[in-house]
């Protein structure tokens, strides 16, 4: 690494989690020079996604003894008029990491034989990953052996997509799951007429196959989904960061009732098509959901129940217990005991409003995993000049004694880098800084399984399932099941994420009972009846993650006023907290941001009429495609008037839509490809 970091920036951001990345992008986009560093060698912190081998190294790191070391060398580099706030050397947000491998760990080179005879897998259950990833790569068969034929000829192109154990489930009718080029390419790669065509479907996935196909996995540390009308989606679109990522709709909302997994009807079409509901139930549900959609308009309906919990309120509505259960757990996704009627109604409304924007459920999932999102914001930051440096630790913040403000950081090379503002992710702060903070914990499990929890016509389903609390006082467990077309797991497997707020000591204690309800450990699978079989568990990881959301600034000791702390991921399904926080910070930094927008708010004299929306669209489209012709006076006119539009009222919105160099000429002369104003 020949290059040395510049020693002066406007903003230094430490940590590449989602909130930090959003702020970095926003600052960079508003014309500030940004240094974004992370002591880890990967992007995203606790928001990251890993390949299988990447996850194994991550596990190894956290299974090691960890005593919260701090940096000390900086003390010699501090002047008398300064004070240092040390940062943490090693992350301590992950605890109780446990790995259990259920899949056969034989390094058998003859996977194709497994299909013919039902071989005893000789499963080994161990409490740790006893094999380093590299040593496992050798013994495995071609990927094509994981595929299974279809009898229907018209389904031929689906072949590489077919799940091993669900072969008989496939009717080739799942046209909604189109193939990615990646899979097309793989298909093109398959030797034609290979004996795959005759291979029986009972193929077992072994541990070595998982390791060999490890690159196909993108395993999220934090399991979240995007509400299709949520803040994050809005931000992605506004900022144009959405062009760096692709999304898939969650295909099913599932519920868990009396030991069975059921699909929850939530859209109008679902309700009417549901075979589980009676005609009367359908009407009741539709009536209730329609009411929820604009419940504020009919306060009489719920006023009397404002003091009650949502579950009690539901009982007073004309809903069967069945429907109450669905609404409470799967639609509102709220707690039976503690959620108020108003909160429940709001959640239900939010859910319903998000329906149908991009598909039949309210949720989207980013292809290649949640970990893509921080990276996309980081790219946006880099495109606008942000400097990126991974594996770059920061020893301390340097605080000026007189002003009480932070003025610089000292990095692991001892280099001093000064800035005006500092964004630090919570996990970088030491115990000394956080001694008054009480953190909650999130319990997480990551499972690799061989079938969906609810079989359907298509094996490419993305499902969310809420398992209600087993005993009073414990927490509901959120289960997100991802199929291979989300690019997060290898073909023939499913990646299952379980999340709940921690109540017992370890994640395993919190979640294992739910895992046992839904899945069968691989070794026992042989004994069970084929028809009633639950999905086999191939591999499981449990860990606890610190939840640093919702911590008030005052809780941190000795925090200089120009240092902002970003929280790690919370336990909720959406990303509201993360995005809200960035909005808050941008407000408190707004004087600083808006300096980049001096002419943005100058009213254009004499123009009263607003431009036509269609022209604005053309403008935005051309702008986003870099095809705006600077000599196009009509569009330029539109542009100047767009600034008057009511719809673009807040400064932050403006910021996202138009990078400030459009307003301040000369500052970014190298920005050739969008030189709108410069040439005017």
């Amino acid at each position, binding site marked *: 690494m*020949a290059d040395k*970091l510049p020693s002066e920036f406007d903003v230094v951001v430490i940590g590449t989690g989602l909130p930090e990345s959003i702020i970095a992008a926003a600052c960079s986009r508003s014309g500030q020079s940004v240094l974004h560093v992370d002591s880890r060698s990967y*992007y995203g912190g606790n928001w990251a996604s890993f*390949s299988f081998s990447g996850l194994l190294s991550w596990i190894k790191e956290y299974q090691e003894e960890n005593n919260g070391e701090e940096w000390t060398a900086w003390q010699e580099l501090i002047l008398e008029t300064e004070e240092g706030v040390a940062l943490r050397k090693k992350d301590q947000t992950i605890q109780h990491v446990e790995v259990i491998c259920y899949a056969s760990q034989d390094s058998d080179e003859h996977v194709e034989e497994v299909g013919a005879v039902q071989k005893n897998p000789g499963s080994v259950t161990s409490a740790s990953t006893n094999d380093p990833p590299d040593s496992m790569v050798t013994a495995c068969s071609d990927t094509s052996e994981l595929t299974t034929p279809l009898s229907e000829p018209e389904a*031929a*192109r689906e072949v590489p997509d077919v799940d091993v154990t669900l072969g008989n489930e496939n009717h080739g009718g799942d046209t909604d799951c*189109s*193939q*990615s*080029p*990646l899979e*097309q390419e793989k*298909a*093109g*790669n398959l030797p034609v007429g290979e004996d795959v065509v005759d291979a029986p479907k009972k193929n077992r996935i072994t541990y070595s196959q998982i390791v060999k196909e490890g690159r196909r996995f993108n395993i999220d540390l934090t399991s979240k989904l995007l509400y299709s009308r949520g803040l994050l*989606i809005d931000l*992605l*679109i506004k900022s144009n960061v*959405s*062009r*760096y*990522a*692709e*999304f898939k*709709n969650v295909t099913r909302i599932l519920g868990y009732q009396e030991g069975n997994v059921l699909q929850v009807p939530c*859209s*109008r079409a679902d309700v009417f098509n549901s075979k589980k509901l009676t005609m009367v139930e359908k009407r009741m549900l539709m009536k209730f*959901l*329609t009411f929820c*959609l604009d419940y504020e308009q009919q306060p009489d309906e719920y006023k009397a129940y404002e003091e009650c919990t949502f579950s009690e309120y539901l009982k007073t509505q004309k809903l069967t217990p069945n429907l109450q259960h669905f609404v409470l757990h799967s639609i509102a996704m709220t707690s039976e005991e503690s959620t108020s009627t108003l909160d429940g109604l709001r959640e239900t409304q939010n859910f319903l409003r998000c*329906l*149908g*924007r*991009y598909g039949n459920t309210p949720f*989207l999932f*980013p*292809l*290649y995993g949640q970990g*893509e999102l921080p*990276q*996309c914001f*980081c*790219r946006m930051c*880099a*495109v*606008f*000049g942000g*400097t*990126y*440096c*991974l594996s770059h630790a920061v020893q301390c913040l340097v605080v000026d004694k007189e002003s009480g403000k932070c003025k610089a950081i000292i990095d692991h090379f001892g280099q001093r880098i000064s800035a005006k503002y500092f964004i630090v992710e919570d996990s970088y702060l030491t115990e000394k800084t956080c001694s008054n903070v009480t953190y909650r914990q999130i319990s997480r499990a990551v499972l690799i399984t061989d079938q969906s929890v609810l079989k359907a016509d298509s094996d490419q389903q993305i499902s969310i399932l809420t398992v209600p609390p087993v005993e009073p006082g414990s927490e509901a467990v959120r289960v997100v099941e991802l199929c291979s*077309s989300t690019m997060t797991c290898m073909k023939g497997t499913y990646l299952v994420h379980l999340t709940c707020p921690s109540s017992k000591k370890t994640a395993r204690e919190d979640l294992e009972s739910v895992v046992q309800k839904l899945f069968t450990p691989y070794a026992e699978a042989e004994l069970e009846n084929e028809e009633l079989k639950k999905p086999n568990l191939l591999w499981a990881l449990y860990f606890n993650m610190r939840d640093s959301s919702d911590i008030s600034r005052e809780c941190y000791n000795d925090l200089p006023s120009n240092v902002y702390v970003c929280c790690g991921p919370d336990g909720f399904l959406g990303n509201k907290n993360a995005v809200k926080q960035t909005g808050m910070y941008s407000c408190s930094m707004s004087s600083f941001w808006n300096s980049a927008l001096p002419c943005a708010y100058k009213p254009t004299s004499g123009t009263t009429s607003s431009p036509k929306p269609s022209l604005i669209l053309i403008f935005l489209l051309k702008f986003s*495609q*870099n095809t705006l012709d600077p000599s196009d006076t009509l569009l330029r006119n539109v542009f100047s008037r767009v600034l008057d539009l009511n719809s673009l009222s807040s400064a932050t919105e403006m910021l996202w839509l138009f990078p400030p*160099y459009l307003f301040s000429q000369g500052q*970014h002369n*190298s*920005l*050739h*490809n969008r030189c709108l104003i410069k040439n005017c």
Partner: protein
Amino acid sequence: MSMEDYDFLFKIVLIGNAGVGKTCLVRRFTQGLFPPGQGATIGVDFMIKTVEINGEKVKLQIWDTAGQERFRSITQSYYRSANALILTYDITCEESFRCLPEWLREIEQYASNKVITVLVGNKIDLAERREVSQQRAEEFSEAQDMYYLETSAKESDNVEKLFLDLACRLISEARQNTLVNNVASPLPGEGKSISYLTCCNFN
């Protein structure tokens, strides 16, 4: 997608050490420009150029590193769904050639395994300062099974050829896949991109 005015769309991604001329290659090709004395890349996300090859419109979406290569911190998502990679080094800079194996490792880790990789030795206009011989580069690219070309973004040598040849190879690759899969449009990625447009709703 049938409404779009092209037959093929490919995502091409540039990588290589800082200062080897990646941005210049793209700008020469897409805009016919060579900006002298350009510093580190700022503000270039990707550029689009539509070319016609044998009567077919091919839209090339060419992505630049946005300067993240400077401290070896390119995001993985940069490599996602790329159809081709242009791995660039500077023929007057031994160091940029020595780093190639490191780049290949990154490609192997993050890019699709079917991605087409082209090795490009840039700055042949500075032949008198050459540090990496053509033969060495040829041997290296052969060993790695890569297509190899030397270019000059400044003199516009081989730049057109680089992108057009690549487009041709991408087309024939896409054709092959289409034949096997019977799928019409080779689009990068299969997920949907999100926008404000919306159709149906709950009501």
